[in-house]
Structures are given as C-alpha cells and as structure tokens.
C-alpha cells in the first residue's frame, strides 16, 4: 500500500478534526476544518484511501503546504 500525504492549502489554525484514524475516505471528503482568514476552511482529500495518521492536533498552527495527515491508498 502506498502512502499519500495530505497538505494544508493555507496558513491557519486547526479548528476541528472531523474524521478518525482508520476511516475510509473518498476523493472530496472533508477530514479536518482549519480556521484562517476568519473563515472555516475544510481540508478535503483528493484521493480514495484510509486515514493512517494525523500529523497535527486541534489548536495547532499550520503553514501552507505543511503535511497534516497521512492516507494509505
């Protein structure tokens, strides 16, 4: 099984993690919500897979392009 890294598309703060490790996800599914530019920004996966690990926790600051989760695809 290959791994795919999910990256943050913008600088912000992790507001909520809405999926769990082990969840099966499909292209377009939301796994996390960031707070940035005073808005709630969903993080969507762009491939089908299973969530292996979250690399950040709620409240963490993230920067653009930072790896924030790992999928098994």
């Amino acid at each position, binding site marked *: 099984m290959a791994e795919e890294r999910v990256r943050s598309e913008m600088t912000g703060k992790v507001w909520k993690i809405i999926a769990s490790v082990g969840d099966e996800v499909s292209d377009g599914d939301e796994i996390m919500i960031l707070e940035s530019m*005073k*808005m*709630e*920004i969903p993080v969507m996966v762009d491939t089908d897979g299973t969530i292996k690990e979250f690399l950040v926790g709620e409240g963490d600051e993230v920067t*653009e392009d930072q790896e924030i989760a790992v999928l098994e695809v």
Partner: protein
Amino acid sequence: MSFDAILDDYEKRREHALAMGGPERVARIKARGSLHARERIDYLFDEGTFIESGLFATSFIPEAQASTPTDGKVCGYGRINGREAAAVSHDLSVKGASSSLTNVKKMRHMRETAVRNGMPLVLLNESSGARIPDTMGAVGTGALGQDPEQFVRRREVPYAAAVLGPAYGTACWFTQLSDFVAMRKGGVLAVSSPKVTEIAIKEKVDPEELGGWKMQSEITGKVDYATDTDEEALDLIKKFLSYLPSHHNERPPEGAVPAGSDDAARKILDIVPAERQKVYDMRKVIAALSDKDSVFEVKPRFARAATTALARINGRTVGYVCSNPLFKAGALDPDACDKVTSFLVLCDSFNVPLIFLTDTPGFLIGLAGEVKKAPGRIMNFMTAMQLCTVPKVSIVMRKSYGQAYLNMAGTRNADEMLAWPSADIGFMDPNVAVNVVYGVTYEQDRELFAKHLKEVTEASSAYDLASIYSSQFVIDPRETRQVIARLLEVHNRDRTGGISKHQLGNWPTTF
C-alpha cells in the same frame, strides 16, 4: 504513360501515405490504448467532411522520402458540429512525428488558412521534437525560422490543443500557445524528453514528474483537463469550441435553453450560507445561475480559490470569474490571479461577456505569495480586467475587500455593479481591521473589540455602496439569474455588433 498507369501509380502512392509509418508502428500506438493520427481526425470531424492537405508531403531528404508519409503530420480541414476548422494531427508512427522543414510548412499553412478564413485551429499534439539529422548544423537549424509569425498569437481564431502522448519541441510550443488544452494521462508536456534531459544536464527525471498530467493541470495550470482516453480529450475540445465564435469578429453562437433552466436559481439560498465564516462551493452557484447543464469549467484543478467557467445564460455564452470560498476561503493567491488573467484574455478575445461573482476575504497575503510575485500578478489581473471591453457584470454576494474588490470589476470597472443585501464591502475584513487599526483582538478585550468592530463596519453595506451609486442594483439573490440575463440584453454592444476592442489579443499565453 497511359492514364490507367498514372492512376495506378497515384493509388499506390496514396495508399502508402495513408498507411502512415506502417502496420507495426501503428500497432504499437494502438497497443498503448490510444487512437492513431488518422483515427483522431476521424473522431474530431463530422463524418465525411475532412479534406486532407499535404498527403504527399515527405521529408526533403531523398533517402528519407519513402519512410516519411505525410512527413509525420496529418493536416487538413473538416467540420466540427457543422463549423469549419483546421487541424494538425501528429503521427507518432512516422519518425516520432518529429518536426522537419516540410511538416513545419504544413503547420504554417494550417495556421494561416485558419486565421485568414476565421476558423479554429485544432492541434493534436504528440511529437518527439525536432527531427535529426534534418535540423543539424547551421544549415539545418538556419533553415528554420522562415516564418516570422510562427509563434505569434493575436487570437484572431481559437487554438485548442490535445496532448496525447509525448509532446516536446514544436508540439510543446503550440500547446503553450493554445487557449485550451486537454491531456491524456500518460502524455508528457515538456521542453525536452527525460532522455535528452538526462544526457544534457545529468538529471534523471521521471516523465510524469517532468511534465505529466498532474503537474500540468494542478501546478502549472497549462492543462485544463486530464483524461483517460483520446476520445475524451477530443470531446472536450469540441465542447470548448462550442462556446466560442469561430473567429474574433463574430459573437459566440447561441444555444437552446433547456427546460427548467430557471428552477435552480430560485433556490440559491440553499447553497450560500448567511454566516460569512461558513464556506460553500461557488461552482454550485454558477450551475444554479446558468442554463441547465451548460457549465464548462476552465482549469478546474488549478488555483481553485478562483473558479473560471464558460456557460450559457438564456442561450448566450458567458464567462464566469469567481472567488470560490471552498478553497483557501476564496482568498485569491498568485496562481488564482494568473488563472483569472488568462480567462479574461480568452473571453475578451472572443467577445464573451463576463460575470464576476465575488465572495472573498481579499488577496491572500503572506510570504508564500510575495515570493511568487503576488503584486505583479495582481496588477496583471487588474490591467487585463480594465482592458476588457466585453460587457462586465459584477456581483458582490457576501463580502469583498480591498484591492480584490477593484480587481473583481468593482464600481466603474463593470458595466453594472450589483450587490446582494448580504454584501459587506470595505478595505479589509472587519475583524482583521480592528486588530490592524486599533491593535485590539477579540481575545484581549471583547467589549472594546465589539465597539471598534461597529465603527469599522459602519457604512459597509450593500445599501451604503448603492447610496453613492457605486453599485447600481441591490438585488434579491433569488433574482440573480433574471437580472444578469436582462442586463446582458441591455449591454448588447449593438454599435459594434458585440465585438470587443480585443486589447488583450496578443497578451502572452503564459506569464
């Protein structure tokens, strides 16, 4: 020689040319699951309309003439859904469809004929690059460059390209010059092949990494769509062209209005949340405002904070320029600026009226953007927008701040400026503005923050904008489609027959 003998010889020569690079080479192309050059032509054009130009062209080198039927590029004219077009279909089975002195002449003739007669040029690209030994030495290379207009885009006619395999050299250049690009997955779009790259600079690079579909559709944005098959890529070209006029001196063709096209627009409030911190997908708004199933997104995988799309409203082609809150909150980054600029150039060149839908916290600020020349890209976008002379209708839906308000055709930059009653307009997001202007955060002092927030948000409503006539309309969101349709009837540009001034006609194709 009798006519029978002459015609017998003619038929043999014709069969030889039509056989391309021979059964083995053609079979290799078929084995990888793609169409060959002639099948692509058959698929592209309406049945029985193709007339071939240069069937008997070959390499200028005598020893290579027998092995270079059509000199590796099948060219000619046909009709696409009843409308004339010129096409160049690279034939990989003949010397890798490499570019030579003869087939470059063929390409030139296709381009000149398309421009002179006002019909789109379709480029089915797949080529190993310049042919060796033809272009070797001063005599070979110096013989090139006979056409001082070869790479000049004035956008008199649309160029639409497909990348259907390796596309290096001329195939790559003409892809770059095109208004629309569909790419079959597995194709490679690059200056030079991985093999040449490795030899020349000792860089071992994977073809997908060098110029594969993911890179070209998501990072460079040169490719609009990636497809699994040749047929899908050709269908996309046909669809793209269906929105545009055949040349820059006519209006886009009108389409039929499907029944039920007004229904979705009335439910637009089901898509857009009233709370400004909540996101939604602007593509759903575009679909709701447009004629049923008429939306054709351009560069959907690239710079998604901006959405650009061709569509129809009451049968008329329009171009949407939108911020999309679903991605980066709709904050426009440098790539989004490039995406919008190239779309503005397309629409203005081919007389497509523009609809701006704005819901943005502004341009994305920060180091990442500055490194990517954000200020210059914002000004490119602004300059291009101000040079557009097609009708422009601009609508602020929930918020629009700062320079982004102007870039999205704010105030007099549009023929008509509209706002939903939910719109908030100002120099920056009010919550941020309180921090910046007064140095107070919500966490530090909620009461003081609320006081300053009230001050900052004063006079920032749709009605305030309308009171100084910087917007001409405040509209019920559910009436947006009807109002746009009506305003496009008013701003019909009858004096010029709907033809723009084409001030962006020779804007660079990549910047």
